């Protein structure tokens, strides 16, 4: 497969086209219920973006990090303060700067990765999770001295136009996610991604080839935190529409970690698959509970079942398919393709016999 445009192959362009048509034309024309936008599509895009951040540091660079929600909080509160105090920046400008602020935290909390690895690094990166949340709670300035604990997010205004309907917010999230996903793909496929993966697979050899471990790891943490920061800002402004540190607790970090692992480590599309699965699965379970058992099963039991199934799935994936759902999807496509091919060959053969 030869790249025909930039680094994209023909297949990539077709995939991109299909995704764009689906998300820009088909979804807005067929889905009219607000529920789908406010409760599924918008959080899906935000969390997929954060999962891409987690993928960069964990899937590509192989650094076990657990603090995505902390960086998201940093991004969200940076966004709030930027819009409040530097209104001239505008929405897009503030979004970029809040990503950069999160990236600065990423560099700071990525430094331990130079000395510790594996599960120990995971514990060390938990510091980001707790420190950032603590900092926001401790210093009133970050919340603009709001005593209620929950701050309402400002309205999104881009170039003087308000984006307040669910559909408009969906498009904001979609645009940001699309651009950042493309950039992430470019990095992952280019020399940057090769350096990440070299560090992941064999760090001593990477160093002997001239790849600087310090620079590569810190860079991965910074980029990862940037993605999480932007995702956090969108999550607060488009989905929660409020800012509270509690929304970015350790549970959210774990959720992103699960999305990353179930989706498939070291894949960009896995981030979207994983996020969709973890968001939709509870919805599906609830629907089953309501429609099949007609509410006979208590909602708390359903949410416990959900946890059990997630746990089981994690174990099953770790053992049988460490590359996650993205790999399953890939295998499925391969199977269909080879089936189609073999049936084509058969039909060709039978036509030959007839002739």
């Amino acid at each position, binding site marked *: 497969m030869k790249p025909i445009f*930039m*680094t994209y192959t023909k297949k990539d362009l077709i995939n991109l086209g299909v995704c764009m048509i689906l998300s820009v034309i088909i979804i807005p024309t067929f889905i009219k219920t607000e529920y789908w936008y406010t409760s599924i599509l918008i959080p899906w895009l935000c969390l997929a973006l954060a999962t891409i951040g987690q993928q960069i540091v964990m899937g590509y660079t192989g650094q076990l990090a657990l603090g995505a929600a902390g960086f998201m909080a940093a991004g969200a509160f940076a966004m709030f303060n930027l819009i409040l105090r530097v209104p001239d920046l505008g929405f897009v400008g503030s979004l970029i700067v809040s990503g950069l602020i999160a990236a600065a935290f990423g560099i700071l909390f990525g430094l331990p990765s130079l000395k510790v690895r594996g599960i120990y690094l995971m514990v060390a990166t938990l510091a980001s999770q707790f420190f950032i949340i603590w900092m926001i709670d401790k210093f009133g300035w970050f919340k603009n001295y709001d005593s209620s604990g929950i701050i309402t997010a400002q309205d999104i205004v881009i170039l003087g136009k308000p984006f307040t309907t669910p559909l408009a917010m969906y498009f904001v999230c979609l645009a940001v996610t699309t651009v950042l996903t493309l*950039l*992430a793909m*470019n*990095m992952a496929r*280019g*020399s*940057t991604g*090769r*350096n990440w*993966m*070299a560090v*992941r*697979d*064999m760090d*001593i*050899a*990477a*160093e*002997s*080839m*001239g*790849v*600087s*471990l310090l620079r590569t790891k810190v*860079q991965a943490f910074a*980029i990862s935190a940037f993605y999480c920061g932007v995702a956090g800002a969108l999550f607060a402004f488009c989905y929660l529409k409020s800012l509270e540190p509690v929304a970015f607790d350790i549970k959210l970090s774990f959720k992103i970690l699960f999305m990353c692992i179930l989706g498939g480590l*070291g894949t960009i599309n896995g981030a979207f698959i994983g996020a969709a699965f973890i968001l939709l699965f509870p919805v599906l379970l609830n629907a089953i509970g309501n429609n099949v058992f007609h509410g006979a099963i208590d909602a708390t039991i359903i949410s416990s079942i959900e946890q059990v199934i997630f746990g089981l799935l994690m174990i099953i994936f770790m053992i049988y398919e460490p590359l996650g759902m993205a790999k399953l999807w890939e295998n499925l496509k391969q199977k269909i393709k080879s089936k189609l091919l073999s049936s084509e060959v058969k039909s060709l053969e039978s036509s030959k016999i007839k002739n």
Partner: protein
Amino acid sequence: MALERKFKIGEPILEVKNISLSFGGVKAITDTSFDVLEHEVRAIIGPNGAGKSSMLNCINGIYKPQKGTVSFKGKQIHNITPNIMAQMGLSRTFQNLALFKRMSVLDNILVGRKLHTKTNFLEVAFQLPKVKKEEKINRERSEEIISFLEIEDIKDTPVGKLPYGLQKKVELGRALATDSSVILLDEPMAGMNVEEKRDMCRFILKVNDELGTTMVLIEHDMGVVMDISDRVVVLDYGKVIGDGTPDEVRSNQKVIDAYLGV
């Protein structure tokens, strides 16, 4: 051996002086000195545990020797790290294969082009024209190496799925991709059959002959060593017990004793 060499053997390019390395109380290398001349094929041999791999690790900066100095290209290097040595033009392969297992053969070799990649991650993210240009050059060079090593048919296979002999070849390819002036090969032919060994020898000599790359190799197969190297240094218990041309080494009584276990 080639009668007429395109690259005449020159001055010392790599000098190791009085290196001593110990792990706790265990002495791996004691007061060892030798040199490597430009454009030569230099072999380091010795029985198991003689300190050969430790020696390469000292030169490359993975181990820090307690005593002694390493000079490369006429400069004494302080604070050796693998990264600094790579930047100065010294590349290596590893004894127990240190490939990037989940990456394809082509990607592995492309990592070897790292020092010829000057664009940063932002330029890569936005795919600026100079990134594309650089990527094209690096890919072309990598393809050249792949066809030189005759591994075109596996270039998109993840390295982890390849048999051992092929992985060794890929590792040589990755070292070649750096365009280094010196390549350290840690047992490039371990675990290979006769045919694969012959191929590997051919590649090593061809690289040395066509590119003038200085080769330092560790090898157990004496026949191979005597055939392809210009000079041989023999280590035993972390000390040099013989140094010279293959013929000199072969007739050295200490070497004979060490190998026969007297």
